[in-house]
């Protein structure tokens, strides 16, 4: 198989684009897809400060790498969840990568350790407060990324969600007819109220396989092991089903998610109406001031419970 562009030996075939690329042309393709996402969704500009949420996995490290190579001012935040050797390994991968980009691009890595603040790792914390681990993880990560973005004056926070993540999430929401979640499944969410950072997903045009290939080709050392807490999750089941469809019918995932985005763009909500909705229901948490619909936000409730039951 030869590269569609330069006709040298290809390293990856992309059936959904009816193309194959060598390393150089594939890197160009990936960078172009991210640049198109940033521009078409008006995510951020070259002067903006971007905070990338990194986990040690392929997507987030690839995102940080791509943004820096495209010339953006991108720093990162890693949240150590305290999941035994998995967190130790992912922390090490992030630190190793950060040493390189700090030297070559002057980027900064911020760190937050759940155990230091809550007195326990995510698994123990979830058990103590009787919540599913993935839900606890989501609440903590969203809170900490937003907190650092606001406190450190970043213009926007970027996550490594890819086409597979978004297609699987859309499938889950459609299967359960959770229409209220669909409004916020776009790749760019505005900073609707004071205390919320703008949130973007620059990788939504790239599949998980393409991002893994980018990481391998560019010698990005990421954690291959799956998070032990995610085993058997519905999200993984949806991805498996979508990948079987994709293999039989290339382009299925992008038709599903991009088609959804196109339909959403032709109707409401626009950024304005989303902002209006948020402003009507959100107000500052009495404990931490981050926006919430309740008196005290979910994160502060969680920490309060943890601090009453975890011996310090």
């Amino acid at each position, binding site marked *: 198989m030869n590269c569609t562009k330069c006709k040298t030996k290809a390293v990856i075939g992309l059936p959904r684009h009816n193309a194959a690329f060598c390393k150089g042309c594939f890197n160009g393709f990936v960078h172009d897809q991210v640049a198109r996402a940033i521009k078409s969704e008006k995510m951020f500009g070259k002067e903006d400060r971007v905070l990338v949420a990194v986990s040690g996995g392929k997507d987030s490290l690839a995102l940080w790498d791509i943004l820096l190579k495209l010339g953006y001012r991108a720093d990162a935040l890693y949240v150590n969840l305290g999941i035994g050797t998995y967190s130790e390994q992912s922390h090490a991968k992030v630190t190793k990568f950060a040493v390189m980009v700090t030297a070559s691009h002057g980027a900064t890595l911020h760190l937050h350790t759940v155990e230091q603040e809550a007195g326990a790792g995510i698994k123990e914390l979830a058990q103590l407060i009787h919540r599913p681990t993935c839900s606890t993880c989501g609440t903590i990560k969203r809170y900490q990324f937003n907190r650092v973005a606001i406190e450190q004056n970043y213009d926007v926070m970027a996550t490594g969600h890819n086409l*597979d993540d978004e297609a699987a*999430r859309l499938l889950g929401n459609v299967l359960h007819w959770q229409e209220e979640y669909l409004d916020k499944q776009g790749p760019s969410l505005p900073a609707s109220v004071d205390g919320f950072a703008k949130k973007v997903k620059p990788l939504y045009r790239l599949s998980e396989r393409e991002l893994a290939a980018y990481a391998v080709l560019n010698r990005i050392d990421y954690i291959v092991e799956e998070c032990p807490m995610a085993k058997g999750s519905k999200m993984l089941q949806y991805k*498996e089903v979508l990948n079987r469809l994709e293999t039989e019918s290339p382009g299925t995932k992008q038709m599903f998610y991009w088609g959804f985005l196109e339909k959403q763009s032709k109707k409401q909500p626009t950024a304005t109406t989303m902002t209006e909705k948020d402003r009507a229901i959100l107000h500052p948490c009495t404990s931490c001031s981050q926006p919430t619909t309740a008196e005290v936000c979910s994160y502060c409730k969680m920490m309060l419970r943890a601090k009453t039951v975890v011996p310090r």
Partner: protein
Amino acid sequence: MEDYDPPMQVQLSHPARTVEVKGPKKVKELLRELNLVVEAHLVIKGDDLVTEDEMLYDGDQIEIRPVISGGTPERTSLVNRKSNFVSSFYE
């Protein structure tokens, strides 16, 4: 006595294990034989990515790397459907 190449060594993940497969065989045939979906895997020979039409031979060191991850949890029906604990954050 004829020279003998051992079968190709194929490293798999989740769980980590190595299996031996007799070559020669195309990448897509190897994946099919192992019942693995192309879209969810990369095939790495030595240090290089290889395409589905590449031929693999006895003696080759192959890694089949899964590319699927759980993804950072987001607010969806999957995680908070029955919860009344979470108030709001990007909801």
